[in-house]
Structure formats: structure tokens, C-alpha cells
């Protein structure tokens, strides 16, 4: 009789129990997948950050403006390839609830800085030709049903138009961008800085923050320090850091999501170990006689131990895999739904691997004690229970 037949017989012995244990483990791993997605959404793109990009902001806070002239100053520094600015526009489309980010940029520089962004040649050309032209990420375009050619009114909350206070800015949509990088932010609306600067009623020549590309990621911290030194004791001192550190800092502002997620998963897996461990133990207890019989007909202790361990592995690990599969399916459905609200909500390959490893580990831990018990069972004693 092959081991497979024995394991399959053991699992079919009480079908309801096998099904219920299987299901509870499936839910544990589904949760693992969902919580991993949530953690990824809250990490604010830490994992997607460009290694060769720095973020330079005002030292007092992100909301203080910097002179646009800093761009040229920074580009003179050794190690800096390119600098490009963005500015928080904070406009409202129809309803303050419809939040998405808008920023004026210099189109060519922006597209150079973020090669992750895919925008058609046609859109690039039209953007250069259209003074009030704007491009928007796929997720936001789908959210509001915008198409290329649409005129989009954005009500200002900060930036009024010179001589037309409280009137909406009107942008012409010249293109819709997307990205091939999974989880990349496809929500932003970008329009031309020259149009913005000429039209705004105050703050001309002031921008929000800079993205700076360095030629050697290894020396990013060094370049950041030299930028901050350059503007030391000026009216607007800077704070520069690698994009990843900036994103991590922003994520920390929300709170320690990583800790919360890990605590919940800890509670879930503790319970799962308890539930499935107990089920396996009970199953072995009920089969004491049968196991004794196996030993009596020549099965070695080691083989009996392996049988029980494999039974546990089959049940728990396959349930874990199935749960992860469900999570991946769920992610495929949910990700496009939430792309406009939480761009980072997706299941990372790394998390799937961790999940697979966890499934195997859980199977082994759950089976360990029952397997040892089965191994140590004294044959004569066990046979009495038949």
C-alpha cells in the first residue's frame, strides 16, 4: 500500500472535519494576502521608489514653497543629473470628496524623470502645443469617465487665477498615461508649469518640491547632503532625502501600519495553529488502533511519523496555497476598483513567496506533535484499542 493511498484514506476518514479544517486555513491565508495588500497600499510606494531619485523639500515642511531658481543651482552640483519641480495644486473636481492629486510640471522634464510613465508620442506632441493641456493617469480618467479632448474644470482651493478669483481653472485633456510597473500611481493629473505660473495670482516663481536624479545611487545620501548645504542659511533651507526614505516617512505619518498588520496576522496564525493542531491531534488519537496495526505489519516508526507529517502538510499546506490563490484572484478584481483611491493596493510577488513559505511551515508545525506521538506509540498498547 503506497503512502499516498494511506494519506488520502486518512483525510477522507472524516470528510466534514477535513473540509472544515481546510476552510479555516484557507481563510487564514486569504487574510494574509489581503493584509499584505493593505500594507503595500500604505507603504506609499516605498517599494517602487527610484533608487537614483531624491526628493528635495522645504526644511520647515512640505507645504512651504521653494524658489524655482533652485533647479538651475542644483543642476550645477556634481552628482546631479537633472532636477525637476512639482507643486501641490489641491484643486477640487466637482466635489471635495473627489480627491486626487494635481500638479504643474515641465512636461519634457517630468517624463524624463519618471520613465515608469507611458504616454503616447501623439499626447506628448499635443501637450507641447496646448498651453492649458493636461495629462491624467488611467485610474483617474476611468473614475470620472474622462477622454482625451475633454475640457476639465478644476476649482482651486489655494491657487486662484489672476483677475479671475474663485473661478475654476480649465484644462484640456491631451493624453492619458499609464505605467507598466504594478502598483505605480496612475491617479495624478499633470499640467504645464508655464501656464500655471503665468495664470496664478500669487507666488510666481515658487514651486512645491523637487525630484532630483543622481548619477550614482550609491552616493545619493552624499548628494542630498550637498544640496542641503548649498541652500543653508538662505531664506528657504531644504531637506533632501532619497525617494524611498521620503515615501517611508510619509507612510509613517499614517501610523505604524506594519505593526498593526503583523499583530493581526500573529493573532490569526496563533489561532490557526491551535485549530488545525488540535484537529490533527484528535485525528491521531482516534486512529491509535490503526496506527498500531500499521506498525504491527512492519511499518517503521519513522515511516509512521512521516505519514502523519505528510497528512498535515497535505491538508494545511494545500489549504494555504488555495487561500493564497483566492487572495491573488481577489487582488486581480479589487486592484482596478481601487486604483483611483489607493494606487499601491496590489499583491506583491514577494508577499506571495512569503505566504507559500508560511503555508509549508504551518503544515510542518501543525503535524509535528501528532507525528511524534504516532511515532512513539507502543504497538502492543495501540493494538488493544482496535
Amino acid at each position: 500500500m503506497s503512502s499516498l493511498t494511506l494519506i488520502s484514506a486518512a483525510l477522507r476518514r472524516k470528510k466534514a472535519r477535513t473540509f472544515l479544517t481546510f476552510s479555516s486555513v484557507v481563510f487564514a491565508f486569504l487574510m494574509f494576502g489581503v493584509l499584505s495588500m493593505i500594507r503595500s497600499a500604505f507603504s506609499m510606494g516605498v517599494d517602487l521608489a527610484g533608487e537614483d531619485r531624491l526628493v528635495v523639500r522645504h526644511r520647515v515642511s512640505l507645504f512651504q514653497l521653494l524658489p524655482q531658481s533652485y533647479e538651475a543651482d542644483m543642476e550645477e552640483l556634481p552628482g546631479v543629473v537633472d532636477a525637476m519641480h512639482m507643486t501641490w495644486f489641491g484643486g477640487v473636481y466637482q466635489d471635495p470628496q473627489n480627491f486626487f492629486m494635481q500638479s504643474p510640471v515641465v512636461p519634457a522634464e517630468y517624463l524624463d524623470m519618471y520613465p515608469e510613465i507611458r504616454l503616447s508620442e501623439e499626447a506628448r506632441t499635443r501637450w507641447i502645443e496646448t498651453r492649458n493641456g493636461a495629462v491624467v493617469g488611467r485610474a483617474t480618467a476611468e473614475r470620472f469617465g474622462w477622454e482625451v479632448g475633454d475640457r476639465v474644470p478644476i476649482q482651486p482651493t489655494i491657487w486662484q487665477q489672476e483677475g479671475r478669483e474663485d473661478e475654476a481653472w480649465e484644462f484640456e485633456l491631451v493624453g492619458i498615461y499609464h505605467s507598466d510597473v504594478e502598483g505605480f500611481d496612475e491617479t495624478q493629473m499633470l499640467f504645464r508649469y508655464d501656464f500655471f505660473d503665468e495664470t496664478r495670482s500669487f507666488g510666481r516663481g515658487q514651486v512645491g518640491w523637487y525630484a532630483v536624479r543622481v548619477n550614482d545611487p550609491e552616493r545619493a545620501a552624499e548628494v542630498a547632503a550637498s544640496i542641503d548645504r548649498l541652500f543653508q542659511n538662505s531664506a528657504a533651507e531644504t531637506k533632501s532625502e532619497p525617494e524611498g526614505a521620503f515615501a517611508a516617512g510619509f507612510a509613517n505619518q499614517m501610523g505604524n501600519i506594519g505593526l498593526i498588520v503583523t499583530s493581526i496576522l500573529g493573532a490569526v496564525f496563533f489561532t490557526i495553529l491551535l485549530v488545525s493542531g488540535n484537529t490533527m491531534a484528535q485525528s491521531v488519537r482516534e486512529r491509535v488502533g490503526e496506527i498500531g496495526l500499521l506498525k504491527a505489519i512492519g511499518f517503521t516508526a519513522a515511516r509512521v511519523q512521516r505519514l502523519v507529517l505528510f497528512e498535515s502538510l497535505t491538508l494545511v499546506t494545500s489549504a494555504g496555497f488555495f487561500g493564497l490563490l483566492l487572495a491573488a484572484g481577489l487582488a486581480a478584481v479589487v486592484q482596478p476598483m481601487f486604483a483611483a483611491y489607493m494606487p499601491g493596493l496590489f499583491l506583491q510577488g514577494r508577499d506571495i513567496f512569503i505566504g507559500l513559505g508560511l503555508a509549508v511551515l504551518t503544515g510542518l508545525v501543525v503535524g509535528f506533535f501528532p507525528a511524534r506521538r504516532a511515532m512513539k506509540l507502543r504497538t502492543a498498547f495501540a493494538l488493544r484499542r482496535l
Partner: protein
Amino acid sequence: MRRFASFIRQCQAVSLYNLQTVWRRRGLSAVAIFGVAGVVGVMVAVLSMAAGFRAVVTGQARDDVAVVLRGGATAESSSILSREEIAVLQEPPGVARGSAGLLVSPELFVIIDRPKIGVGTDANVPLRGVEAAAFEVRDGIELVEGRRFEPGRNEIIVGVAAAAAFEGLLVGETIDVGRASWEVVGHFTAGGGVAESEIWTDTRVLQQMYQRGNSYNSALVRLTDPAAFEEYERALENDPRLNVGVQTQRAYQAAQSAPMEVFISILGWIIVAMMSAGAVFAALNTMYAAVSARAREVATLRALGFARLPVVVSVMIESLAFGIVGAVLGGAASWALFDGFRASTINFASFSQVAFAFQVTPDLLTQGITLALVIGGIGGLFPAIGAARRSVVGALREP
């Protein structure tokens, strides 16, 4: 009537017998109990976060205080009011009078970076420029350490929640904002309200530093009573010299806290729904096992003349009891671990930090017990029906 009394007696007998044997099945029973405890514990913890956040942001908000922003602005940071406009705010009837004149508090609101204690990365801390009226417009502002800032000097006072959440804000310490150094001269409480997460200083000093001339972001106006609000609002909206939006402080703060609160709650309930499904399977497993372990005993009772229903009832009672015990354990653990746990998060509406403490409220514990009863109910029902349906003869023959 007699049949009913006999039914009750049978239920009692079977249930008591069942509960007496729980200890013999302690491993399995523990599984069901811990499963429920895990779900309830996580649920209470997550929702206590939302409750604590709400308590801070809306707790001290009043109906007789009006928040005045520039028309169209949704938050202080995007609003601007001139000195002239502030003067107009004092004209309509209904403005309450304080120790030094009418209670209109013009305020400046900016954000500065301070490292968050524990993580060390910068967080957006609100810095508010205030005049004397600010201390009277709000309720319960009290200096608990040090003194108030002196007008015209680079001095700040810090809310106790901010002092505990961000680095370098103890009395006597100095912080650098831009090229100026500010000395922390006092700590204040605000009845648990959102002001405790803020840093306050003199408006003039802040205006100068931020080159704001004589402008402000917002104004708080204390009215004589809540009924005066409508008339006051109408007076401002009809004034041709003004372009402002007026709300009660309660409405304003509720709108400020809503996005975060809704967000935490939705996320919390998704997690709880999934955990509950897992726990239902664990409970079903336990109760099926409990029933099958006692198949002969149940059959014996049935053979002795016990009806089916008392058997169903007894299994249900046991499952519900596990649920309640689990809920109490989970709720108690959550309360012990998280009640009063201090955290700070970003308020999406103002993009600034709010420090708050988790609040495990009785209401949350009630919700936890309700959830546990649902899990226990579903977990017990099917095994109970199964037990009642088994043939007496078949079960008696089993080893």
C-alpha cells in the same frame, strides 16, 4: 403546559450534563473559545482606534462656536481672511463677550515638520498662531506646565498630546523653524480635544515669519448660544464685504474626522468579516467533534425518552457559551492591551497629525459579544441538527 415544563427540564438536564463534560474536552473547547476571542479582540482593537480618533477630533466641538473660512475653502490651510474681514465678523449680533471684548479669535494655521517619537521620521505638526481670544473661545484650555507665550516673542506652548508624540517639545527645549529658534515655555490641555495635538504661538510672530502681512487663515467665533448660529451665519453670508463660509464647530470637526474614521471602520470590518468566517469554521469543527464524541451518550438519552429538540438546544447553548467566553476573553485582552494606547495619525482633511488614544468603549464590547453570539450560533446550529437527526440505533451500536 406540562409538555412545555418537561421540555424545559429536559433542556436543563442535557445542557447541564454537556457543560459538565466540557472539561474533558478542554482541548477542543479551547479551540472554539480562542477562535472567537481572536476575532473579537481584533475587532475591538481596530474599532477602538476609530473611536479614539473620533473622540479627539469631535469631542470638544461646540454648537455655539462658528468656524469662519474663506468661501469655498474646506480646511484652514486653504483659507485666507484679512484683518478687515476679521473686523466685520464682530459686527453681527449674537457674538459672545469675554473678559477682554468680543470672542472672535482670528487664527493662523501652518504645518511644521517634527520627528515622530518612536519612528524618528518627520511628521506634519500643526502650528497655530493665536491671540488672547483663542483661549476663551475654546473650552477647557489649561496650562499644566510652564506659562503662556509672551506676545511678540519667539515662544510656543505645546498641547500635551503633541508633546508626548513628537520630539523636542518639552518645556525648556527649543526648536528651530526656518531660521528662527522658538522656546517651549508651557504645556496645555484642551479637555482631550484636537488642540492638544497642536503647537500655539503668538499670531504676530507667526505672521512675520511666514510673511503673511496682516492676514489669517480662519476665525473661531463664540456665540451667545447655539440658537444664535443661524442668524449669525445669515448675517455674514449676506454681507457684501465678505466672501466666507460659516459652519458650526461641531459640523466642521465632524467633516474633518469623517474620511479617516470611515476608512478605519471599513478596513476594520473587512478584516473582521474574514476572521469571522475563519472562526465559524473553527467553531463548526469543534462542535461537530463535540457532538460526535458524545454520539452514544446522546443516543442513550434519546433511547431513555428525551426528545430531539432538547438535544439541539443543549448543543446550541454550549456553542453560544463558548462564544460568550471567547468574546469576554478577547474583549478583555483588547481592553488590557489597547485601551489608552497612544498613537498619532494624519488627518487627511488638514494633512496634519492628530494624536489620540485608543478607546475601548462599552458599545464596542457589546458589538463584540453580538458578533461572538453570531459565530457561536452558526457554529452550533448545524452540528446540533446533525446530532438530533442521527438514528438512535445506529449511534448506540458505534464503539
